[in-house]
């Protein structure tokens, strides 16, 4: 019994252990910013990642409120991996920051919230997890305490998320009113498709949409990314997005399965909007963080296309894509992180002639961007095409055609940066940057991931076997 409990909640428990040890250290020690300390925390996260892989069993706790399966644990492991990469990349930033431990505490508690959300079998736990993952992020967005942009970002984030959670709660309450239960299994049985229920569902959907920054609920995204520290922006765009997407797929496919006609319409509309608007805004960005924000919005649109398929392939493709997306996006953010934390240059024009001074970084950036754009042989190619293939299974080729054409548009702005780095001259290019071990490890992980994940058909097959679909 007890060890089943441990096995099922091992991810959460592990995180709690790290959190508390951090708290204690914060209280106990006074030189929390030494290199030793950073090494330690990253090692802890590595351990955390590795622990995630052992004893994968599926079951449920607290009579169904907390449930776990191999798939969920896989997703948690993916998140852990991303977390590790981010903490490695954050090194140049945190090393110079007064409150490094708080940074990690907030980060980890947010991840903890995501884990709860992932394993939630009950709307209450889901809600708690959601808030737990959101609120610390708002604080993190504000982590450059004396930068006005940063605090503006934090403000925008907390305000909009609170506003959206009000809608989410409204949806939950109505769902409760119409089904008489808050646990997913119960709700599934009670769905009738009555208008009020549809309304409730749409409100839930909106809550998700906000977190996934689906157009038209995306407005906070770009501002927050721009204002927040790069590592936080990376976390927002990769980890929290993937977590929500995982939950989204499970909720749609297993809980609201019978409402497929409703959410297909929703997905169709929002996917078109998300891809289109995301691209149109990404086209005209000059700040690279903001650019990445909008590009990630567009990426979400593709995820929606994949989800709309509703088959086992769809679920597998979405998870597979998110894994690849973590590598690709973190690769790009990693470079941006290093550049901005060392030279504090964040405009795309600053990257002109980048190749002359930093060939390695430029290649990493290029490969990551190619992967985001879906250009072979990078993994992004496979990820994106599988999403489209999954989406096409509904026979709605209009959506697919739209997405495919937008892939070309996105190609333009990704290549634009490559062009800036390789082809355009610049009298004051970014100087030669030398950076510490941690970020380079992170970047290497990303590149290896980008180059290998795509070709590993077995990985896809593995995910495919775990996933259920409708």
């Amino acid at each position, binding site marked *: 019994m007890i060890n089943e409990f441990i096995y099922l909640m091992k991810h959460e428990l592990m995180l709690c252990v790290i959190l508390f040890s951090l708290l204690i250290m914060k209280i106990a020690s006074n030189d929390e910013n030494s290199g030793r300390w950073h090494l330690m925390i990253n090692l802890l996260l590595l351990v955390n990642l590795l622990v995630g892989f052992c004893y994968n069993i599926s079951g449920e706790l607290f009579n169904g409120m907390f449930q776990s399966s191999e798939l969920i644990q896989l997703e948690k492991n993916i998140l852990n991996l991303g977390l590790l990469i981010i903490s490695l990349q954050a090194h140049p930033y945190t090393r110079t920051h007064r409150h490094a431990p708080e940074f990690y505490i907030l980060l980890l508690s947010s991840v903890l919230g995501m884990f709860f959300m992932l394993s939630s079998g009950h709307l209450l736990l889901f809600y708690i997890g959601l808030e737990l993952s959101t609120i610390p992020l708002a604080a993190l967005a504000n982590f450059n305490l004396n930068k006005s942009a940063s605090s503006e970002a934090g403000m925008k984030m907390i305000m909009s998320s609170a506003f959206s959670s009000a809608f989410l709660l409204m949806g939950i309450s109505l769902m409760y009113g119409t089904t008489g239960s808050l646990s997913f299994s119960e709700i599934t049985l009670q769905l009738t498709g009555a208008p009020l229920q549809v309304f409730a569902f749409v409100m839930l959907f909106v809550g998700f949409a906000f977190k996934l920054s689906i157009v038209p609920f995306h407005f906070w995204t770009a501002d927050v990314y721009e204002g927040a520290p790069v590592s936080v922006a990376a976390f927002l765009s990769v980890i929290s997005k993937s977590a929500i997407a995982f939950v989204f797929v499970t909720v749609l496919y297993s809980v609201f399965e019978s409402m497929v006609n409703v959410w297909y319409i929703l997905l169709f509309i929002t996917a078109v909007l998300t891809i289109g608007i995301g691209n149109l805004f990404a086209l005209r960005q000059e700040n690279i963080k903001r650019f990445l924000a909008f590009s990630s919005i567009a990426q979400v649109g593709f995820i929606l296309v994949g989800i709309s398929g509703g088959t086992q392939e769809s679920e597998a493709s979405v998870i597979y894509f998110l894994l690849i997306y973590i590598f690709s996006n973190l690769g790009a953010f990693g470079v941006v992180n290093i550049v901005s934390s060392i030279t504090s240059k964040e405009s795309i024009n600053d990257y002109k002639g980048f190749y002359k001074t930093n060939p390695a970084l430029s290649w990493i950036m290029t490969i990551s961007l190619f992967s985001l754009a879906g250009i072979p042989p990078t993994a992004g*190619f496979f990820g994106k095409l599988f999403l*489209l293939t999954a989406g096409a299974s509904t026979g709605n080729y209009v959506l697919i055609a739209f997405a495919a054409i937008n892939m070309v548009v996105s190609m*333009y702005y990704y290549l634009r940066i490559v062009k800036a780095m390789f082809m355009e001259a610049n009298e004051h290019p970014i100087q030669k940057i030398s950076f510490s071990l941690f970020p380079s490890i992170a970047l290497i992980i990303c590149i290896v991931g980008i180059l290998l994940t795509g070709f590993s058909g077995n990985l896809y097959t593995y995910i495919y076997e775990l996933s259920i679909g409708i």
Partner: protein
Amino acid sequence: MNLHLLVIAPIVTAVFILFFKELRQVRMIALLGAGFQLIISVLLLSTFCNERAAGNTAPMLFYNSVEWFSPLGIAFTTGIDGISLSMILLSAFVVLAGVLVSWKMEKMSREFFFLLTLLSAGAYGFFISLDLFTLFFFLEIAVIPKFMLIGIWGSGRKEYSAMKLALMLMAGSAFVFLGLLGLYFSTNVGNGQHTFDFIAISRSAIPLDTQLLFFPLAFIGFGIFGALFPFHTWVPDGHSSAPTAASMFLAGISMKLGGYGCLRVATYLMPEAAHVYAPYIILLATIAIIYGAFATMMQTDLKYINAYSSVSHCGFVLLGIGMLNETAIAGAVMQMISHGLMTALFFAAIGMIYERTHTRMVAQLGGLLKVMPFISTIFIISGLCSLGLPGFSGFVAEMTVFMGSWQHTEMFYRIATILSCASIVVTAVYILRAAGKSIMGPLANEQHLSLGDATWNEKSAAVLLLSGIVVIGIAPFWLNELISPDVNGLMVNIGRTFIP
């Protein structure tokens, strides 16, 4: 014989290149790699011919399939027939020549040769894959290196052209992908599973309305690669801004991906739709041929001249395909090969001239025959080849297309054919104008007197390509024997709804 070698060899070469920095080492490795590829392809040819001679009439030889993304019905399936084999040979020739002409690429040589080799890997992969997804994968692999090659090492409005090329080709592949998805979902291998397997799809009867929807997508998609009017505008800019080797690859290989795809994927897999759309294809092809030729007349830049003439010549490929009969399709395949070699040679010659005189403007050139006899001779020869002189490959290909086209008795087809024939006159006009001004005539610029003739590497590149051209031109029968059985094979499918 394992076809994977064709893909592995370039990739290994590319990886090796990354380990070196000096131009001397890098180009040596690239050269070895390219030579090795050529050797492989020739070996492949011999084994292929033996197999066929031994009476192996399987549609695809050296068939081999490796599980990849089995849930999605994607496998790494490879195999070749005469058509793809000839394409592989073409690529091998062009790659080797390309490496040779870019022998003195000082600027960022490592990256240059790396991308060049990667590009060839894409081409080989495309020609050997029998799985539509893999095919598409390699098709796209062949795009982005071009973007980098043009954008970094190009000349003129290089960024613009590079971006334009990349975007248009990507748009093309987007269309292709939609077409492939249509095919994919119209297959069924039990319990709702679909497959990308080429042969399986070719055997499955695809409903006509599906074909009518997806044939245009696939055909236009590949057509953009193959300079289908009016989606050809990347060709002039791309070719003219690209460095010599890249232009050679573009014209010699990339545009062939398009033609090959139009034939193999679009037309072969969706024959009924092909018959429905044939008139439109022929219309566009004819426009491309005649209009491309006339547009060429007005060009003043040697590379633009050749680029536009490529539009015109690739029109013959699409014309042959659109005619949907055995002779014409055989002609189209021949034209692909011929055009590949010839245009590559032409671009090589132009590149050599440009390297020396630093201009490509016809007006600023003149009397080069006196200064650089070899290069000028090469220039004239490739010009003569492109105006379809007997003894060179162009003649064989074009005549085959014409003979095939003439077999349609409808007035529309006849007019299309006559117009296409008329283009050979226009071709003669612009080729002779270019040659007459820049190669013959009085010396335009006294400084040119000091210029030297071709170096050994340029000579060998030219001779390599020239040998291909001449061999096909003198003895077309072997090429015909190589491809015609497989064209027959294609016709079994394509002709299955042929309305005489």
